[in-house]
């Protein structure tokens, strides 16, 4: 049976190690397996490994699944794992490698069905990291170039689908792997088409050209819901949309006194940050801008994820209180500020920025809104003219790829530290040694319960200090023909295995 899916973004290669990017990772999950799979809630489930456990402080042992066959008939074994972990971080020309997950780990083959992962320090997130690296075949894939994958020559995995054809920009055709070791997919033939323009994607579904689409624009959800021929699936994602504030410059480039003069950066004052958070009407954002399809955020990950604090609630909308705080901080008449935001990255990103601009202007912080394509935005936001983040107040999002709270804590909250690789996306340069210490301790703690507490504690401390201002969690929507049901995933991936017939 044939299934045609309209994707919102286009995979850029068949090579699973080439570009560590959402759409590519989603695609590679069809053809390739990982040692550990993430389920729809990003919980770790056995994949090509049947079990994994730390055998000492520095070694994890993985038992491999016996009897798994590649699409070309060859057998899966420990050699494939070793060579895959060698290839993944080092594909030529790759703009975004898997080194993030493989570094610091040595993979040792013990026997045909056992491998050891060794690290220099205790490493609790071994499972999460390993779950991101696709396994390719030693014989067909490890020495192949990206082009060989795209042409199909090397596109040989153990996954539920087999490669049929790839026309860049147009479509990817896969067929069912009838020898799959796990649950076999319902679909014998799978077409993945990318239709970037939201309305066009919806139109394609309405016209019956595709069976299912990902990334339903929020504006259309209401109408599609009332359409009898369609069925929607929704689920909260691991992505939090938040505001980063300049907390390291005495004079912030985009914060000005009323009338445009220089002032000492008010964002350094925690009362001002709190006021901003209180001025944001999260309900309005969710209801009006997101058309109800989002969840108010009070911390880094939505409920149910590992490392989430049960104590934190979204900050309540309180413009009066906000004004009071501003006055207390010495800004009774507010100041001027620019919010920068991408306009093609997150769901309704520019509109949210505009709404926030409106809300802040109302409590006296006259906020200009500047949106730009992500191509311009990210390099300026991360590294402006002087190698420092250029903006003062930005809207960004963070999806926790590992599915637990250390990911945002380490990248967004921890002090920017190039040598240790911490705070790489800390574009406000928030820095609190106390929080840093808790995060680092969590990252050394292999015990799950203890780690959960440490992560929650770090989150609470950061939110208390208004290191960042979370606004909401994205909710993703898929729409399909009646009779099809998609199991919504927190990682935002669109996977054909998740499409079920009712």
């Amino acid at each position, binding site marked *: 049976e044939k299934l045609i899916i309209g994707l919102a973004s286009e995979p850029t290669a068949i090579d699973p190690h080439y570009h560590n990017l959402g759409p590519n990772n989603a695609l590679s999950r069809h053809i390739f397996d990982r040692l550990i799979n993430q389920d729809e809630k990003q919980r770790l489930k056995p994949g090509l490994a049947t079990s994994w456990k730390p055998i000492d402080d520095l070694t994890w042992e993985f038992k491999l699944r016996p009897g798994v066959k590649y699409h070309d008939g060859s057998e899966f074994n420990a050699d494939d794992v070793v060579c895959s972990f060698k290839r993944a971080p080092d594909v030529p020309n790759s703009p975004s490698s898997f080194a993030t997950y493989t570094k610091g780990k040595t993979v040792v083959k013990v026997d045909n069905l056992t491998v050891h992962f060794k690290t220099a320090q205790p490493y609790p997130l071994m499972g999460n990291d390993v779950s991101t690296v696709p396994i390719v075949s030693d014989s067909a894939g490890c020495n192949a170039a990206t082009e060989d994958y795209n042409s199909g020559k090397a596109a040989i995995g153990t996954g539920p689908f087999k490669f049929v054809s790839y026309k860049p920009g147009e479509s990817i055709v896969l067929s069912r792997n009838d020898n799959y070791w796990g649950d076999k997919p319902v679909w014998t033939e799978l077409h993945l088409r990318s239709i970037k323009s939201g309305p066009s994607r919806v139109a394609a579904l309405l016209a019956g050209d595709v069976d299912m689409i990902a990334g339903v624009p929020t504006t*259309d959800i209401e109408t599609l819901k009332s359409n009898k021929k369609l069925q929607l699936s929704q689920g909260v994602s691991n992505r939090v949309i938040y505001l980063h504030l300049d907390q390291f410059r005495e004079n912030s480039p985009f914060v000005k006194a009323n009338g445009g003069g220089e002032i000492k950066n008010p964002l350094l004052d925690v009362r001002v940050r709190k006021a901003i958070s209180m001025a944001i009407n999260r309900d309005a954002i969710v209801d009006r801008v997101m058309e109800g399809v989002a969840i108010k955020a009070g911390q880094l990950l939505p409920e149910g994820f590992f490392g989430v604090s049960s104590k934190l609630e979204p900050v309540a909308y309180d413009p009066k209180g906000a004004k009071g705080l501003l006055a207390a901080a010495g800004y009774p008449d507010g100041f001027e500020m620019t919010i920068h935001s991408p306009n093609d990255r997150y769901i309704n990103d520019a509109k949210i920025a505009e709404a926030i601009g409106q809300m802040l202007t109302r409590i006296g912080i006259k906020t200009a809104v500047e949106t730009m394509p992500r191509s311009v935005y990210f390099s300026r936001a991360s590294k402006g003219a002087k190698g420092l983040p250029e903006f003062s107040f930005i809207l960004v999002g963070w999806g926790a790829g590992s599915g637990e709270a250390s990911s945002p804590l380490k990248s967004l909250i921890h002090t920017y530290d190039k040598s240790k690789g911490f705070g790489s996306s800390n574009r406000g340069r928030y820095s609190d040694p106390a929080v840093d210490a808790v995060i680092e301790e969590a990252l050394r703690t292999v015990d799950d319960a203890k780690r959960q507490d440490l992560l929650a504690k770090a989150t609470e401390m950061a939110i208390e200090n208004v290191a960042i201002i979370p606004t909401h969690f994205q909710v993703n929507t898929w729409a399909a023909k009646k009779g099809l049901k998609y199991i919504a995933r927190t990682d935002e991936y669109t996977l054909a295995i998740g499409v079920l017939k009712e």
Partner: protein
Amino acid sequence: MTEVVQQDLASERQVQTIDSETPFKRFVSEFFDSKTASVALFILLSIIILAVIAPWITPQDPYDLAQVDVLDGRQPPGAEAFSGYTMWLGSDGAGRDLYSGILYGLRISLSVGVMSGFIALLIGMAVGLLAAYAGGRAENVIMRVVDLQLSFPAALVALMLIAILGKGVDKIILALVVAQWAYYARTVRASALVERNKEYVEAAACLGISHARIIFRHIMPNCLAPLIVVGTVQTAHAISLEATLSFLGVGMPQTSPSLGVLIANGFEYMLSGRYWISVFPGIALLVTVVSINLVGDHLRDVLNPRISTGGGKAK
């Protein structure tokens, strides 16, 4: 070209009417001969006036974030806003009153179109006149540059430029100027070449009049007619182009939307039944562009029936 000139002679020789009107009066009376063009001009003028007085006739300043409330968002036509006024054309996703938004958007769209057209016209005219008058190597170099520019579609040039320059009215205008000046230059050069070879230029030279004066006082006024036509068409084109760029996400900023941005934003709502967000600005754009084109079309007939042929390889 010479044929055209000969024809001019032939046709003019027959019109031996000695009327006492000035060329301008004659032009005006001929222009208003066409009902469609008169109506179009009337509409266009009304649009311009509305755009100019927008701040005094709109309930909201859609560019002032303090006046725009997301809670007013996506209201259908006729709904009442929180601040009490009626949004006759509804509101967009950010809570902008569309009536106000359209009039303000018109201001931007028109000024982008007119400004870019005007600057491009000035540049193009100077370059074209210079090329035609100087001749020889200078002309060759200039015209190669013009060719280079023309060999790229305006849309592509503008797209690339804005990607490089970033957003903002000034940048859009700059991009549109770069995309358009060559059209003017070519037009001016073509007519200046014809004019330069006319005997009145020789007469002026014979009378010892300086080159600059010959170029600007004698040749230039005679090249204006086709320029005006190209100017109207290009202005309409610039307005459309700005809308298209906005659609592609590289146009005007989100918070000071031009018509194009309004349409592009509303575009997302097309399938959701909230037609007004995109349709009303769309109609405004359409009416503006159509009436400019109608006026330009008729100007073409009145000012110079022959440049419309696009003769030879002209576009």
